């Protein structure tokens, strides 16, 4: 019997050695270890043995079984590893083939930049306020210290609906509406469409977008205006960005300024993009004119404030190096898909 067991073990181990796939292994397992397998068959004969021999043989049989099981599991592991290797090899891809994309759209470039600016202002505590585009002459001009026949109106070629109704030329009209309704402190931006009677060319469209800001409170100073614009530009363009103020005139602010930003292209050295100036004109700003405050029922002796207006198109064109304004309103998908 001992010999028989040893023979079984030898045979099993040899078979395992030969085995090349998991199917053969299974056959081996059944043949030797299965319910009807050879070891079981041997064990069935145990009854014929003497009481003396039985435990010895039992032990031996178990040992043989354990050894076969171990070898089997080793062989299984080996074969699994081999198969895994093979399958990995066979599944190897050309990773340079194109990816499968889930199609996604995109916001219009103007609104990409608009959202960014809105985020910056919200972070600085500015509410976003909107107002009508078809506006009364009063809110668009008169309340902004530009009575009828005021020469400054010439700088804003206006579309008229009738004598007293216009397409707003600036979103400052929203500031007036806000000041009339809201008690200071006021901290708002008013983004939106504005209209000027300019024929479309590379740098003009009859419709464009402005983002105007207004801050009214006790003790607001011109240095606060400088600081606010400085912070805005640094957040939009990075800490190295520099601004420059030049005296200018707007009927609704006093003092008034035009604000330039250091040319991104040359860093202020002067290049063809900035016409050798080192700076590019960016926005208009100033301290809200006391007449404007008064007209809105805010006492200029108690409150002061500043306002500024940014042109969204200019910022967008600068950001994406777009050289023709009309592209923004042509809506060619070959253009829109680039952002």
């Amino acid at each position, binding site marked *: 019997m001992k010999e028989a067991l040893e023979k079984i073990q030898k045979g099993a181990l040899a078979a395992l050695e030969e085995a090349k796939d998991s199917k053969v292994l299974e056959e081996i397992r059944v043949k030797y270890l299965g319910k009807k397998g050879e070891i079981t068959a041997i064990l069935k004969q145990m009854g014929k043995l003497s009481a003396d021999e039985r435990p010895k043989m039992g032990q031996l049989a178990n040992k043989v079984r354990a050894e076969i099981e171990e070898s089997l599991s080793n062989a299984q592991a080996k074969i699994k590893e081999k198969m895994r290797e093979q399958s990995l090899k066979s599944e190897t891809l050309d990773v340079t083939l194109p990816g499968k994309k889930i199609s*996604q*759209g*995109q*916001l*219009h470039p*103007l*609104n990409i930049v608009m959202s960014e600016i809105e985020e910056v202002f*919200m972070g*600085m*505590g*500015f*509410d*976003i306020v909107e107002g009508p*585009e*078809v506006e*009364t002459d009063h809110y668009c001009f008169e309340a902004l210290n530009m009575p009828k*026949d*005021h*020469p*400054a109106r010439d700088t804003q070629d206006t579309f*008229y*609906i009738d004598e*007293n*109704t216009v397409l707003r030329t600036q979103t400052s009209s929203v500031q007036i509406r806000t000041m009339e309704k809201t008690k200071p*402190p006021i*901290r708002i931006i008013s983004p939106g*469409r504005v*209209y000027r*009677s300019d*024929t479309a060319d590379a740098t003009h469209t*009859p*419709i464009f977008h402005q983002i105007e800001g207004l*801050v009214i*409170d006790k003790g607001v*100073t*011109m*240095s*606060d205006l*400088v*600081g*606010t614009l400085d912070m805005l530009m640094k957040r939009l363009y990075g800490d190295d960005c520099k601004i*420059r*103020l*030049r*005296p*200018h*005139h707007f009927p609704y602010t*006093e*003092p*008034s300024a035009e604000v330039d930003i250091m040319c991104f292209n040359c860093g202020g050295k002067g290049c063809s993009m900035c016409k050798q100036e080192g700076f590019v004109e960016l926005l208009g700003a100033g*301290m809200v*004119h*006391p*007449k404007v405050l008064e007209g809105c029922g805010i006492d200029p002796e108690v409150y002061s404030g500043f306002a500024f207006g940014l042109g969204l198109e200019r910022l967008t064109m600068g950001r994406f190096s777009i050289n023709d304004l009309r592209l923004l309103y042509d*809506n*060619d*998908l*070959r253009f*829109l*898909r680039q952002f």
Partner: protein
Amino acid sequence: MNLSMKWLNDYIDVSDIDIKKFCYDMTMTGSKVERYETEGAEISKVVVGKLLSVVPHEDSDHLVVCMVDVGGSEPLQIVTGAPNVKAGDYVPVALDGSTLPGGVKIKKGKLRGKESNGMLCSLGELGLTTHDFPYAIEDGIFLLGDDCDLTLGKDIKEAIGLNDTSVEFEITSNRPDCMSVRGLVREAHATFGRESRLTEPEYTGVDGNINDYLSVEVKNKELCSRYIGGIVKNVKIGPSPRWMRERLRASGVRPINNFVDITNYVMLEYGHPMHAFDLRYVDGAKIIVRNAADGEKIMTLDGVERELTSDMLVIADENKPVAVAGVMGGEYSGIMDDTETVVFEAACFDGPTVRRDAKKLGMRTDASSRFEKGLDPRNCMPAILRAFELVEELGCGEVLNTVIDCDYGDNKEHSAEFDHNWINGFLGTNIPEADMIKYLESLDFTVRDGKAIAPYDRIDIECKADIAEEIARIYGYNKIPSTIITGVANAKRTPMQKFKAKIKSAMVAQGFYETATYSFVSPKSLDKLNIPADSKLRDPVVISNPLGEDTSVMRTTALPSICEVLARNYNYRNMSASIFEIATEYIKTEGVLPDELSRLVIGMYDTDGNVDFFTLKGVVETVLESAGISGYEVIRAANSKCFDETAAFHPGRSAVIVKNGKELAVFGELHPDVLENYGVGTRCYCAKVNIDESLKLSDSKKVYKPLPKFPATTRDISFVCDEDIPAAKLEKTISAAAGKILESVTLFDVYQGEQIESGKKSVSYSITMRSQNETLTDEQADNAMKKVVKALSELGAELRG
């Protein structure tokens, strides 16, 4: 305003300051320089020469051979074809290697075998006209006159005074004082701290009573606050001297004759327009300043007859208007070669009136652009005195020593409170009071008794913020510190702003690109969309002065905007398009302003046919879902009571979304006629969602529902029914019949064709049931299905297989 730097240097010496720095510094104190231009910059190696001899060319009947002395050791031989040269003439000589305006280069060469070492120049070749040198001829060599430096070999630009620099300032509308040399001298003085040499004009005059020559009556004193008339007799009309012509040229004004030039010169120097009349043509020798009569006509100096209205102000004589006040003179008001007596006018007219008159008549002039900004009547007297002074200096007439002065000006002081503490508080600066006073005084302000008093031509000074600006700009805007606004502010987006953001991100996530379209459209765009003639959409807000018909009305529907973009992309041969925009529609109201309504418009096409009605419907449903809108009904577009755009859609392939009786959206395939109108050769799908109404019905509140504890049972069912029973009805029937345990009904097949009787369709649903309390038994599910089958059979549906 174009400033001659020579002229400026007459009154303040800044000639040693680099022109770039000059422009930069002036800009930074508030006089913005647009550009500058140096005269004759393109001219080099052109010198003064004297013709020693002029002999005909042997081999030519029109060329002559000249020997020219250009101050060198040897005379030059130059061949020319000009007929007007003779020995002894002084001429401009372009030497070998010289350059002329327009990029012309001169090199020596041979003309018919004769060596020519350069070229003799005409006025035109130097970029000049006979206005600059009236004694020269257009088509011949420029023979230099006594007013030129005739030193041989002298650079021509120096010799003829073609060496000024003209600086173009962008003067803002509040600073008419800076539309003058004197105003800019003042600014330069404050900017550079150099001494200014401005003087007051003086003249001698001849005795005579002006009333013997002229009378003046101002009928409208409100619109004409001052009128000064002066007389110059025995005038000698002729060209003005070179220095005057030069300065006019550099200022962009063409020299005409001495009297016209004097009025222009004074306008440029003092910023005050003047006028000169020929007394012969002033009927009755009487000047009347009055309103025009309606329909009255005047032939203006530019030879155009213009009809006037009674709100316009004119200068008239006894019989006729002779000038539109402050705008332009009449045909006969000008100075002729035989004029003997000149009337000088220095007057002050109401700015808004001049602006309106000039605009109405379509003639903006140098004069009107100054008057309209508001001039001070006190500027009239210095202006006319300067004109007198110039007449005497030029020796071109005798000035009467009396004038008629009708002065109705209020001589208001232009001043404001000066409080250095307030100014520092307002600017956020710490400028010492003494410095502030110094800055103000450099601008000719007087500071006293807590007031800063501006010179009278500073009509813009009204309040203390104006004073703060004066100080800030001379102190330097960029020296103002940068501080952070204090105080707490809480910014938040409005519900509408959040709602729109959600809609946009839902559209972008579905692969759509946002567009930006014009808000104005052509009224014909509605024809293209088949919109009925009586539709309310046909009553738009109309722009009274549009750029063209295509942009003449504010859109009442955003649909044409999106169709336009689809058509454009189709024409660009873009194979597919998926676009959207949140666009505004402008709807007239009873009130002053129209309603401005927000709409989501969607457009798509795919030339490969990968999109259809249901793709679009899915998009619309997804966007509504993400905007918190559910529980709506979809009905055929033909049943819409709200959307007039339904006419633009395919009648069988368009629908409207209704919730709580409110129509929120219309969508579908565009009508084939519309596609044809837009020239699009592929099916297009469009939708319009009313955002304002949708926001009201949106509910974005999310409440967690416990995850199911028990398994669901799913049964599939297929049946045949009439083809015109809408799926929505079948689903409703199934839901109602299955009862509480129903979890979902999902359509997975609709089939018509072989094996299905015509007029019928086969429909298959997957029905999922679940109980919250127990595992459903087969029996429970079977019972529910039996009820479903029964309910369906009542609709005439027959179970298949």
